């Protein structure tokens, strides 16, 4: 067990643990935010694990999660638009905090990796993750004006 996996243990236990609590209890608006944050918290955890195990190939998992995690949230934002319109979520503070955590993890890993294509790959994953989660948050708080049938 090294520093990377130790950080991942703490971050995953506290972060994803909190989102599990958030998604299992409370009103719908809190649950969708927790679902969005679960992928935003797990993806940096996967990057830390890839670094901790010394296996660059594991980064592909973080790539797929950064791409599809926000898509999953868009599914809920799109198909629950009517329910969320009555009671829209407002959780920008915690969303930006989690996005900042992802940015810090990506930047630290970039500094460790050093310049090269591997660093660009990390930056691409970071951009997809943070951009995706912010857009998904936007979609949750009124991204779909009206949802009749389409």
């Amino acid at each position, binding site marked *: 067990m090294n520093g990377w996996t130790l950080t991942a243990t703490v971050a995953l236990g506290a972060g994803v643990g909190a989102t599990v609590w958030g998604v299992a209890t409370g009103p719908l608006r809190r649950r969708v935010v927790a679902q969005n944050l679960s992928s935003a918290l797990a993806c940096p955890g996967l990057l830390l694990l890839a670094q901790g195990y010394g296996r*660059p*190939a594991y980064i592909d998992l973080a*790539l797929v999660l950064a791409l599809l995690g926000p898509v999953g949230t868009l599914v809920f934002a799109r198909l629950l638009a009517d329910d969320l319109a009555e009671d829209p979520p407002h959780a920008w503070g915690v969303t930006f905090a989690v996005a900042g955590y992802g940015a810090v993890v990506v930047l630290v890993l970039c500094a460790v990796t050093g310049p090269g*294509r591997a660093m*660009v*790959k990390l930056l*691409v994953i970071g951009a997809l993750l943070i951009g995706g989660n912010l857009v998904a948050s936007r979609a949750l708080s009124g991204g779909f004006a009206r949802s009749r049938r389409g």
Partner: protein
Amino acid sequence: MDAQTALRGALEVLLWWAGLTVLWLVLISTVDTLEWVVGASAALVGALAARAARRAVGGR
């Protein structure tokens, strides 16, 4: 479709193709000729999908 539209469409596909080929080269670990060929073909399919998607959304 007039000449200008066709030109703009071709330019759009070309830009996406270049961008997605660079993305492919970033994702892979070791670069060789076959990687270039496969990456460029995949990027071309992606670029055509990007243009088709934009037209499907815009052309309404």
